């Protein structure tokens, strides 16, 4: 794919001589770049190579100059796949470094990139570029974060412009560009240039995941991260690579009452009811507690506690 005869026929003669040599200068075609983005978990994978991204950009510019929209679109796919892999790997590194909120924001970026790719690219059954894997794992990482409340704005869009041509987005006189489609190797989006803010609400499932509710700092000058990231840390500490998969299983386990002798009656009951231990399960012989278990597909490094965690 990638060679569009109809488009080439419309290319001025002077460009026909330049287009292919430029493409050959590094990459045969975007499909080769996509091939080089296979199996990012292997040491030879080169999504992180600046050369590859430069070569893709160069190939895209040549394709656009040649009027080869199919090739330009493939270049966009290659760029987006590389960006998704990099973003996923970056979020993993941020979690490793205990920069959890930054990792959360990067996971959101990764989710957005993957969503934009899915419209134009169907992973192969083997998912060689690991886009399907990344999509699944981003959702799994997000699911173990402690965030529950987010701030979300509500607004009226008063003027919206097309990113491709800059025209005002119109109901009855559309510019012809569809949001999400690829034109000249770039994805079209709508840019809100004038809006009216209507409200800001606290929600559980926000459009913008980065808008996490934090407490203000002691001196009121900023915010403080009061969240408990122990579950995220537990998981990331047991992984060497972002491409080592895992899933969680929510189970229950039975705890003899003697094992809870240290709990005061006023403590929150470990059964998860939300009420006090004294008025809930303190008089029982056994307490059934929720139990989160991680299943790691690659053996965690030695010297760590068992891969189980209670909450």
């Amino acid at each position, binding site marked *: 794919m990638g060679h569009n005869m109809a488009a080439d026929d419309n290319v001025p003669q002077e460009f026909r001589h330049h287009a292919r040599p430029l493409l050959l200068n590094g990459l045969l075609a975007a499909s080769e770049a996509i091939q080089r983005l296979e199996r990012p978990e292997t040491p030879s994978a080169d999504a992180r190579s600046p050369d590859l991204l430069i070569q893709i950009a160069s190939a895209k510019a040549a394709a656009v100059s040649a009027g080869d929209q199919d090739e330009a679109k493939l270049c966009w796919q290659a760029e987006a796949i590389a960006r998704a892999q990099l973003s996923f790997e970056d979020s993993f590194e941020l979690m490793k470094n205990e920069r959890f909120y930054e990792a959360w924001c990067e996971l959101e970026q990764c989710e957005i990139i993957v969503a934009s790719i899915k419209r134009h690219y169907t992973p192969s059954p083997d998912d060689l570029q690991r886009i399907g894997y990344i999509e699944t794992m981003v959702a799994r990482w997000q699911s173990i974060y402690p965030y529950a409340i987010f701030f979300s704005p*509500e*607004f*009226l*869009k008063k003027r919206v412009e097309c990113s491709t041509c800059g025209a005002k987005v*119109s*109901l*009855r006189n559309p510019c012809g560009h569809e949001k999400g489609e690829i034109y000249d190797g770039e994805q079209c989006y709508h840019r*809100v240039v004038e809006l009216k803010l209507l409200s800001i609400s606290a929600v559980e499932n*926000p*459009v913008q995941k980065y808008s996490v509710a934090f407490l203000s700092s002691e001196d009121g000058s900023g915010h403080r991260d009061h969240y408990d990231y122990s579950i995220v840390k537990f998981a990331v500490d047991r992984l060497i690579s972002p491409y080592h998969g895992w899933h969680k299983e929510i189970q229950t386990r039975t705890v003899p009452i003697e094992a809870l002798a240290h709990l005061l009656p006023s403590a929150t009951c470990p059964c998860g009811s939300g009420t006090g231990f004294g008025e809930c399960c303190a008089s029982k012989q056994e307490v059934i507690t929720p139990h989160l278990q991680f299943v790691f597909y690659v053996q965690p490094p030695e010297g760590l506690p068992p891969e189980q965690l209670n909450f």
Partner: protein
Amino acid sequence: MDIQIEVNETVQDRFFWLGQGLAHNNLAEVSSADLLIVPLKDFREGIPFAFHQDTASLARFLAKKMAGQAKVEVLADDEEYLELALHGASFRFCTIFVSVALAPLLINLLSSYIYDELKAKPSDTIEMSVVIEDHQCRSMHIGFKGDAKDFNSVVDKVSELSHECMTAKPAADSNTQSSARKSPAEIELQDTADDGA
């Protein structure tokens, strides 16, 4: 999330909407539309009408898929078309008026739009409503809020309702329809009368 499906007869029928003074420059087109997408009314103080995000894209998708079968219109002139960006990651559609005969096709196309165009995940929340107009001049509103994976329940509900309508005896008095349906000119006259009142 739990599925919420509402089915009720609505007084906010097509003629109610055509009398709102919208799409004045395109009245002939919207009056004769087979599928009419209407805005949210009085969503917030000072915002009498507004549309959910990407309503224009949805209308273009439906028009393309129903080309030659049905005429799709949005009840607004260009300057009246304003979109909302709302809280919460849900896919929301404005109310669509559709005849009983076209309703099953519309629902199937919406399902295709949700999965193929929006690339919704099974757990994504969908909010939509359609008003099905039957040949007895009733307007039945079906509202759905639930996960994308449960959208089939709307298909079932619409099929059931369509079957009931199609097998029911058509309105005995055809004048009932002709008297209820107003021409654009009549609506304009009505608007003028309202303005003067």
